[in-house]
């Protein structure tokens, strides 16, 4: 049938357009400047410091997201309660917020003049201009990526499995740790990867809320902006590292999730 062939050609053309559009800019990062020059500009003062700071802050943010987000997602996935759908919406809201809005919102809430600013000052906590502020911004923008994925993963566990565990006397806490988390691990891992990737790329919220200072708050994306004006090669070099890092995170999680030991079926 020529009609269905035409449709198939349309699908292929659409996918082709998507792939070209999404990959050409990334290729541009690598081919614009010779690899040797990219490497050399990474050695410049501040570049490695920014990368290191990015790794530290995103790792810390990820730990916080996992520790608090996993049980929260479990509750959302396995219980129905009043206001659950409101809670789900609130958790997802930062997903669609522009980063600049997230930064302004954090400043309006936790900044020195923010609604909780006085409490924080009394408690001796300073976030603005501090590495801790970067972590707060990262947790704010990245946690929904993990929680949403974790919630879906927990929700897809066969309820009789959890019931059986409880019948066998495991108790709620042990069922969560020993049955639910291992069963949902593929989904949890891919949520981790998404959250990490988002945190690694965070820019606007960090700049507005925490500021940009070398070694304290200037993460790799902020260092890219700082270099953009004078040192395009340096900005490209940092970008290349971020591309490589993000791709590594994505690939390793796909591989882990795909391997049978990690319940590969769910992730396909």
């Amino acid at each position, binding site marked *: 049938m020529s009609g269905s062939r035409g449709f198939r050609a349309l699908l292929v053309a659409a996918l082709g357009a998507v792939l070209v559009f999404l990959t050409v800019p990334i290729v541009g990062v690598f081919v614009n400047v010779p690899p040797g020059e990219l490497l050399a500009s990474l050695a410049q003062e501040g570049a490695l410091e920014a990368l290191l700071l990015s790794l530290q802050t995103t790792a810390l943010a990820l730990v916080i997201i996992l520790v608090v987000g996993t049980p929260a997602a479990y509750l959302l996935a396995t219980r129905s309660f009043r206001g659950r759908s409101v809670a789900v919406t609130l958790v997802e809201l930062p997903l669609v917020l522009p980063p600049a809005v997230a930064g302004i919102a954090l*400043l*309006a809430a936790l*900044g*020195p*003049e*923010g609604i909780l*600013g006085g409490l924080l000052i009394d408690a001796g906590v300073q976030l*603005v*201009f501090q590495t801790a502020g970067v972590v707060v911004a990262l947790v704010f923008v990245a946690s929904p990526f993990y929680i949403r994925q974790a919630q879906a993963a927990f929700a897809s566990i066969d309820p009789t499995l959890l019931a059986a565990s409880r019948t066998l006397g495991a108790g709620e806490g042990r069922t969560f740790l020993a049955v639910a988390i291992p069963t949902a691990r593929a989904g949890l891992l891919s949520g981790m990867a998404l959250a990490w990737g988002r945190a690694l790329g965070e820019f606007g919220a960090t*700049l*507005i809320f*925490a*500021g*940009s*200072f*070398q070694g*304290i*708050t*200037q993460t790799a994306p902020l260092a890219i*902006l*700082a270099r*953009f*004006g*004078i040192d*395009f090669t340096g900005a490209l070099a940092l970008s290349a590292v971020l591309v490589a890092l993000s791709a590594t995170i994505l690939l390793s999680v796909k591989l882990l999730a795909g391997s049978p030991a990690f319940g590969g079926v769910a992730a396909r």
Partner: protein
Amino acid sequence: MRTIPLLATIALTLVACGGEEESASGSEAGGAPSEPAEEITVSAAASLTTAFEAYDERTPVTERFSFAGSDALAAQIRQGATPDVYAAANTELPQALFEEGEVGEPTVFVTNTLVIAVPTDSQIASIDDLTESDVDLVIGTEDVPFGSYTRTVLDRLPAGERDAILANVRSEEPDVNSTVGKLTQGAGDASFTYSSDVAAASGRLRDIELPAELQPDVAYAVAVVEGAENPKAAQAFIDGLVSGAGAQVLQEAGFRPPPAG
């Protein structure tokens, strides 16, 4: 994203064919509000935000603005962006772009004054107070003009005082707007910005003048970008900045005219 300039070009062609006589008389003194909408894109230093938006309301053409640090805008032009107009908060960046063939010959159109900006209720009274260790200072990056002027000022101080002030820097911002935003939110106690930024902050900031021997020469230059979609309207925009509605708006916003000659 090519469609918008394309549509603008088509619209312009139509205007050019149909309304030559009217537009010739209308564009002189920023009059003729009934003229068909022309459009130009303007990449301008963030410190020009308030003034240029007010200028837009007094010109027959529609300006689409991109406000950012002059250094970032220059980098965009070097990477192939072609706004119609480039207006920077110094003369070096437009001059460098001119020598590289990216923009036409720059014109100095306005000057500004660097000041210490503090929240209205601040206790800070002079540059010496910025050495106190409990002051959180927010300045521009080394490359954005207001950050580079800041370093010029600090380099004129005795080394000890300069280092004490630099030790209080908590953030290096890409443009004046993000700096002023931080100060008005109590994030940061002081910054070096332009007096026009303080004027634009509608009473939430006050300025502390710098001693005359520390004051750097802050001059703004503007140029038509090579390959501009609409060089004629771009030149008219610049002419209005030098002597016209733009010059008037700039003075109202706290800028000063360039030295004569």
